[in-house]
C-alpha cells in the first residue's frame, strides 16, 4: 500500500465485493493499540488468515490441575562448599513439599585428583638431582590448588622454573608413583601416563616451532606457501620423469618425509628433491617448468652448483620444445663452435649460454614459420594452417618442398643430416629460388 504511494501509482482496488467488506475492517485495524502503525505494517498489516504455527503442534504444559504450585523463598545448602553457608533462593513448591536433592549445580564441582605421596615413597622412588623434596611438595600443592593449570603454577612457583620443567617433574613423579603402587606392571601399562610419558625436549621444540609459525610475517607465509607449491610441482615432475626413464638413469626424490614433517614441525620443513640433472631428461619434463619456477626451486635449495643451475634453466627454457628441436639446438651450438656445457661456468658465461640457447630456439621457430608461410603462398591452400608457433616438430611437412627460404650453407648440411625420406633436390642458396617459385604461384 505504502509502496504504491511512494511510487505514485494509483491504488487499484480489486473489484471483489469481499474486499469492500474487509476494507472497513482493515481500516479499524489500522489503528492498533499499543504499537505504531509502521511496526504493525511490518507484520503485514493484517493478521495472517492462516496461523503460521499449528497450535496443536505445541507441547501442552504438563500440569495436571490437581497439583498446587507455589513459589517460596527458601534456604539451601551446597554440597560443593566446605562450610555450612546457607543461602536463599526461589523454590518451586509442589503441594506444600519442597524439592529434595542436592543443589543442582553441585555436580559441576569437579577437581583433578593430584597424587599424594608419602615421605617414604618420596625417598624410595622420587628423588631427583635437580628437584628438592620441598620444591616437589610445593609443586604438587600448587597443582592441586590450581587444577593443573601449569601456567598459573609457573607464575606462582617460588623459584623460577619453566612450564616444561614443572610439567616434566609432575608427570614423571606421578608416573613413578603409579608404577610403584601398582600391584603389577601390567595393570598400569594401559594408563596414558605410563604409555606415553612426557617428553620435555619434544615439547620445547614443539612450542618453539609453534611460536615461530605464529610470528611469521605475511611475507614469510607467502614464501612458505610458494616453496611448498614449488616442491609439490617438482615432486610431480620428478615422478613423471622417473616413470618415463630407464632404470639406468635413476631419479630419486624425497617425498614422504616432507609430508610427515609438516605435521610436527611446520617451520622446519626441509625443501625436497634430490635431483640428478642430465640433459636427456628435458623432453620428459613436459610439465610446466618455466624459468620462474626453476629459479624459485634453485633459491629453495640454498646451496647448489652453477652447472646444475644452468641445466635447470636450460630445461625450463626448452620445456616447450620437442626432442628433435632440442637436438637441432645442440647441433646449432656445435656448428657455432660453442660447448654444449660451458667449460668455465661462471655466472656471466652461464647467463650468456642460456641467452644463446633461447635465441637459437627463437631462430628455429622463425625459420619454421617462414617455411610454412612459403608453403602457404606457393600452394595457396587453406589446408596448411598457418599457425607456425607450434614448437612441435611438424613431420607431415612434405619433403618435396625444398628449404628455399633460408640461404645459408648450413641449411644444406642440416638437411642432409635429417633422417627423413630422401630429398631429391638439396637446397641451394635461396633468393634465386624464391623468385621463380613466387612467379610460378602468381602465374598459375
Amino acid at each position, binding site marked *: 500500500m505504502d509502496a504504491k504511494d511512494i511510487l505514485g501509482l494509483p491504488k487499484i482496488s480489486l473489484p471483489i465485493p469481499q474486499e469492500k467488506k474487509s476494507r472497513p475492517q482493515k481500516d479499524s485495524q489500522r489503528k492498533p493499540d499499543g504499537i505504531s502503525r509502521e511496526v504493525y505494517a511490518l507484520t503485514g498489516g493484517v493478521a495472517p488468515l492462516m496461523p503460521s504455527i499449528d497450535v496443536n503442534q505445541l507441547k501442552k504444559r504438563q500440569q495436571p490441575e490437581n497439583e498446587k504450585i507455589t513459589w517460596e523463598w527458601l534456604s539451601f545448602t551446597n554440597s560443593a562448599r566446605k562450610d555450612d553457608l546457607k543461602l536463599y533462593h526461589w523454590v518451586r513448591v509442589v503441594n506444600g513439599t519442597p524439592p529434595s536433592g542436592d543443589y543442582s549445580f553441585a555436580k559441576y564441582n569437579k577437581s583433578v585428583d593430584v597424587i599424594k605421596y608419602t615421605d617414604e615413597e618420596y625417598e624410595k622412588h622420587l628423588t631427583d638431582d635437580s628437584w628438592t623434596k620441598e620444591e616437589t611438595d610445593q609443586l604438587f600443592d600448587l597443582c592441586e590448588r590450581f587444577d593443573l593449570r601449569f601456567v598459573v603454577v609457573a607464575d606462582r612457583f617460588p623459584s623460577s622454573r619453566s612450564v616444561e620443567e614443572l610439567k616434566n617433574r609432575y608427570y614423571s613423579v606421578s608416573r613413578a608413583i603409579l608404577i610403584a603402587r601398582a600391584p603389577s606392571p601390567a595393570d598400569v601399562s594401559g594408563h596414558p601416563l605410563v604409555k606415553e610419558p612426557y617428553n620435555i625436549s619434544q615439547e620445547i621444540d614443539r612450542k618453539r616451532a609453534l611460536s615461530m609459525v605464529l610470528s611469521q610475517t605475511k611475507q614469510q607465509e607467502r614464501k612458505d606457501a610458494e616453496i611448498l607449491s614449488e616442491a609439490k610441482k617438482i615432486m610431480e615432475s620428478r615422478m613423471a620423469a622417473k616413470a618415463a626413464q630407464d632404470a639406468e638413469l635413476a631419479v630419486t626424490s624425497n617425498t614422504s618425509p616432507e609430508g610427515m614433517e609438516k605435521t610436527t614441525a611446520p617451520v622446519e620443513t626441509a625443501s625436497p628433491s634430490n635431483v640428478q640433472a642430465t640433459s636427456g631428461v628435458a623432453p620428459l619434463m613436459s610439465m610446466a617448468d618455466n624459468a620462474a619456477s626453476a629459479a624459485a626451486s634453485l633459491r629453495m635449495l640454498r*646451496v647448489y652448483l652453477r652447472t646444475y643451475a644452468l641445466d635447470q634453466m636450460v630445461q625450463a627454457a626448452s620445456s616447450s620444445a620437442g626432442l628433435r628441436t632440442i637436438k637441432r639446438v645442440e647441433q646449432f651450438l656445435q656448428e657455432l663452435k660453442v660447448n654444449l656445457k660451458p667449460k668455465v661456468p661462471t655466472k656471466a658465461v652461464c647467463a650468456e649460454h642460456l641467452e644463446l640457447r633461447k635465441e637459437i630456439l627463437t631462430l628455429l621457430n622463425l625459420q619454421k614459420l617462414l617455411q610454412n608461410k612459403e608453403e602457404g603462398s606457393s600452394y595457396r591452400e587453406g589446408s596448411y594452417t598457418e599457425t607456425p608457433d607450434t614448437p612441435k616438430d611438424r613431420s607431415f611437412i612434405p619433403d618435396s618442398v625444398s628449404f628455399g627460404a633460408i640461404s645459408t650453407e648450413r641449411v644444406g648440411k642440416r638437411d642432409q643430416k635429417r633422417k627423413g625420406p630422401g630429398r631429391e633436390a638439396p637446397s641451394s642458396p635461396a633468393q634465386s629460388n624464391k623468385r621463380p617459385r613466387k612467379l610460378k604461384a602468381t602465374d598459375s
Partner: protein
Amino acid sequence: MPQNSSKNHSSNQQLDVTGPTPKSPRTKMVRSSDDNEKKNLVKKLKDIEISVPIVYGNIAFWLGKKASEYQSHKWTVYVRGATNEDLSVVVKRVVFQLHSSFNNPMRVVESPPFELSESGWGEFEIAITLHFHSDVSEKPLHLYHHLKLYPEDDSGSLSVKKPVVVESYDEVVFAEPSEGLFARVQNHPAVIVPRLPAGFSLPPVPAEDADKRKRIDPKDNPLTQWFTNFSEADELLKLAAARQQVQAQIARVRRQLSLIDGQHQQQLKPPSEL
C-alpha cells in the same frame, strides 16, 4: 686382472660407466633446510648470492718401472679454489668416496688442501662430498668425478714425468646467504661476493687478520704446476660471437617473413578489388 698398457678404460667390476660420460660431472642436490630463525646474524639476504668458484679433478702419474700389476699409477683427487685460494673459509671438510676395493673407501679430509692421494690401476667414479660450516649450509653438496689415469690418445705414450690431468670447473652458489656469513667472507679472495645495494648495513664481524689467514703457497704443493688456469674470457668471447651470428640470422628471417606477409596481402587483395 691382467692389464693392457695401452687402452684400458674399463673400470673395476661393478662400476662400468655406461654411455657417454659428460664432460662436467652430474651433480646431485641434497635437501637443504629452510631455516627461519630471526636472529640478526642468521637473517637471510634476499636476492643475493655468494659463489665460490672451485676446481675439482685428479692428477695421475704413471709409475713407470716401479709400476706393478695392481699399482700402476699414483693419483691425487682434489678440490681446490679456482685460483688456488683456501676453501676452508666455507668448506669444513671433504669426503671422498672411493671404489669399494680400496681399504676404508670413505676418506675424510678435514683441512686444506682438500686432496687425497692413492695408488692403483683402475678408473672409477669418485663421489666427492663437500661439507660446509654450519653458518654456510646445513646440508652437504655432492660432486662426481671420473678418475682418469690414462691419456685420451691411444698412442699409449705413458710418461713418468708428465701426468694425466683432468679438472672440472664449477661454482658453488649460496643463494640468500645469512648476514653473518656475508660479513665473514666478504673480503676473502676465494669467494665472489656481489656488491650490496645501498642502504644495507651488516652487523660488525671481527675482521680476520689477513696475515693469519692461511695462504696456500705454491711451493708447498708440488701439484700446483699442473693446475689448469680456467679463464672465462675465452668462452665469453665465443658466446658473444655466436649470439651475434644468431641474432643476425634472426633479423634476416624476420625480414623475409615480413616480405612474405606483404606479398600475401597483395595476393589476397586482387579478388576483392580489381
